[in-house]
């Protein structure tokens, strides 16, 4: 137990370091962006109306005060850390004065729901098919499904999404192609609302599953086909252990280790992966929120979403790190 406590302490330290470095880097890069939120707001407000040029200067000064953009970069950085610790990322510049946090919090459940569901389906299905295909190499059905999955794999998410959108929204219009739920439906734990959620989530989730399936399938198949030739598997085969047992106990378990690490680490990419899908299907998640933030030069919002994703991924990696020694006993001994 002592060793485990030490391991835990190390991981905790690393966990906080990751957050510190990640957040600092994100702040730095975001602040290097030449997009000036004040100019963006001025442009937004003067784009269409009749504007007196003398008034714009006044407006600019007022906005700078409002947005708290005054002071040196160090001042802004320290102020930002204060906000991170309080869980308050300040007001969104493009949705002033709504707090960034409340924008993220209302978008986050959509993304978490969509991504968890599609990731679990993708990971389970991809690994199962990949492991089976790596073990039973001559099975025709598995070969065919493997070929299908691999053929879909390189197709960009945008194209898969657009094809699904065309197929089920246009040629055979049975599924909604936009939004997270039916319009004017009261959110709540009602059957109608849950159904509406599922119906609206189907196409985005399907897109993410089809896009993601291939990489799990391919890496699992390769891992398994390597392990199959390992000595311990060969001995087991010679020793007459049943092939089902070899598959589940000797092969799959070993191959799952890197795949489990992969699952935790792929969480960092899901924000990126979801961006195009959420954007295409107008899904009200964090990815779409972020793209809007970028388009509007809202660095408070972009920074908020980035920070939340850094913390979320760090937490996920931490949890996987805790589980890891339980599954791979060799690590425990080190």
């Amino acid at each position, binding site marked *: 137990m002592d060793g485990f406590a030490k391991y835990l302490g190390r991981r905790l330290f690393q966990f906080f370091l990751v957050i510190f470095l990640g957040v600092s880097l994100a702040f730095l890069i975001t602040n290097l962006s*030449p*997009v*000036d939120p004040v*100019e963006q707001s*001025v*442009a*937004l*407000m*003067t*784009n*269409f109306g*009749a*504007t*007196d*040029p*003398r*008034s*714009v*200067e*006044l*407006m600019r*000064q*007022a*906005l700078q005060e*409002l947005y708290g953009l005054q002071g040196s970069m160090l001042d802004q950085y320290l102020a930002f850390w204060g906000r991170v610790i309080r869980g308050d990322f300040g007001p*969104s510049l*493009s*949705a*002033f*004065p*709504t707090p960034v946090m409340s*924008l993220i919090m209302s978008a986050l459940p959509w993304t978490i729901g969509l991504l968890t569901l599609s990731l679990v389906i993708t990971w389970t299905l991809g690994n199962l098919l990949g492991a089976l295909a790596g073990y039973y190499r001559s099975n025709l059905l598995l070969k065919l499904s493997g070929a299908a999955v691999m053929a879909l794999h390189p197709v960009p998410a945008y194209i898969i999404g657009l094809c699904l*959108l*065309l197929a089920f*929204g*246009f040629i055979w219009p*049975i*599924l*909604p*192609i*936009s*939004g*997270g739920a*039916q*319009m*004017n*439906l009261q959110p709540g734990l009602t059957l*109608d609302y849950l*159904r*509406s959620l599922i*119906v609206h989530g*189907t196409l985005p989730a399907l897109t993410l599953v089809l896009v993601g399936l291939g990489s799990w399938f391919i890496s699992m198949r390769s891992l398994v086909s390597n392990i199959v030739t390992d000595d311990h598997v060969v001995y087991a085969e010679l020793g007459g252990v049943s092939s089902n047992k070899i598959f589940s106990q000797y092969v799959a378990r070993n191959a799952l280790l890197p795949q489990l690490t992969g699952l935790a680490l792929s969480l960092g990419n899901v924000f990126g992966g979801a961006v195009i899908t959420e954007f*295409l299907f*107008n899904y*009200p998640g964090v990815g779409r929120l972020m793209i*809007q*933030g970028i*388009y*509007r*030069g809202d660095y408070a919002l972009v920074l908020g979403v980035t920070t939340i994703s850094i913390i979320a991924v760090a937490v996920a990696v931490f949890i996987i790190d805790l589980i890891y020694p339980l599954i791979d006993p060799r690590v425990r001994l080190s």
Partner: protein
Amino acid sequence: MLLKKLAAAAFAIAATVMPVAAQDFIAGIPREEALIIQGPAAQNAEWFNLWAPGGGASNNGLQQLTADTFWFINPDGTGDAAWTNALASDKPIYNEDFTEMTVKLKEGIYWSDGVEFTADDVVYTVQTQMANPGMGWSAPFTVNVESVEATDRNTVVFTLNAPNSRFHTLFTVRWNAAWIMPKHVFEQVEDPLTYNNNPPVSLSAYQLHSYDSAGNWVIWKLRDDWERTSIGMTLSEAPEVKYVVYRNAGNPDARVIEQMNHNLDVINDIAPEGMFTIARDAGENTKYWFPGFPFAHPDPTLPSVLFNHQREPFADKDVRWALALLIDIRSVSMGSYRGAANLAALSTPPTGTAITDYYVPMQDWLANFELDTGDGAIKPYDPTISEQIAALVKPQWGDSIPSDTEELKRMFGFGWWKQDPAAATALLQKAGFSKNGNQWLKPDGTPFTIKLMVEGDNIPTLARAGTIIAQQWSMEGIQTTVDVAGPTNGQRLGGGDFDVAIYWTVETWGGHPDLSFFLESYHSDFIKQPGETQPPRNLTRWEDERLDAIIEANRTVNFDSPEVAQLGMDYLKLAVEEMPFIPLMAYNKFAPFDTTYWTGYPSAADPYSASGPFWSNLRYMIVALKAAQ
């Protein structure tokens, strides 16, 4: 085994959810009572305060359906019919030297919570915004208004800091204007800048029904007392549109699909190809601004090739003219709009009253206009462009293209400059340029290359126009690369961080000959140093004493005086001679309407209202629509 189970599970899920797909498109609202309009993705869905910076949340129906102010100009209208008195009972009344403006208000108008609208609301609106810098119209009020006072319940008198014959334009809607605030709501509020005004009280015929906290849709409902509004009192019977739904319908492809599935009645803009698809596959239940090709609605906005006059060599008028003469406008029209462009040689959009006020009367002047190339004078104007475009699109559109040249001019524009590489060569040589092989060299001997900035995806037609012009210049020996600025476009234009760009620097009332809407900001007083942000709209930073003289003269002329059009022509002639930017065309928008549920949309034949979903003037269309069944 496993596959079977999975398939069974999939079927089970499908069976549970399928019935939903067949349900109403909008829960609880009959489709035939709702008009569905393409809305923005509101980032600040809970925000309904029009007067404080709120993330552009106002285009989701808030400013179109609940806000009101003194006057409206129909951007597609002409003459007196384009002007509407909304909250005001009459046009603005100025004193002799334009230092005082009096507004008479209508009676019997009520806020949606039953409180009566009075002159006190107006005074409160102006004073509150002056007291709170950062509110939307705070700065223009501060600059202009010395004092404002309600002399009686229905009369407001503005005393101005300096003479200004255009002060009333602050309260005149062309897209938007200074909206009147509900005094009885905001005086209860501690800070009007941070108050979200949710739910908003309405001063117009519709009020908030429900909204999506994720910002994808907002539903507005007809007020029970719709007659007690400025728009309602002009109607003889209740508007048939009971609900207005602003929904963010996704990317252009999704918009086309949604309209063809009858889930989106009004589209803001799509690419020409999407428009042609709708006309081809759903022609029977859709309507457009023009009944056939070119379909599009021309906004009173003028996409142009903008030069940065503060960067060499674009300060030289000969260089600008040379670049204009290297453009083959026919391929620009075909490539950007597939021929469906309304071309403009004058520096004002060829829409609304500009046709009769400027384009028709100035044709002779344009035809006789001579340009000195340094190698003799040429007459560059080609009035037959519209016929040439018609010949190019005829193979695709056949008999739907009329043969009457007058009609063609209204569809494709009155004329443009002939492509003339020889004259361009002469002009460039006059400016000290020389040609080495097929590469033009600047006077200092370095190659003449251009970075042409476009915004990109947001306005696909202009991005396309940019790539074509870049190719034409490159082929003539001026290497031009297209630079997609994306979201930084506005900032770079304002900051003068570009050589040449495709964008607009001219927008007009559309329904009125007065050009002060953009021209006022062209005065040299407002030109900034390179690197500093130029106030809208003189993005090219064009500076000319003759221009200043025109602007100063316009300031002292009454809005409705015939002299306004005279000064307008002076500006247009100067702009042709100087070519400060190359006007290309009106900003055409492909905005098809679905007629499955609603009919009576405005069109070129009956331009009774603006039709753009984000224009506040849209309200006059909504109340005029008739149910199809």
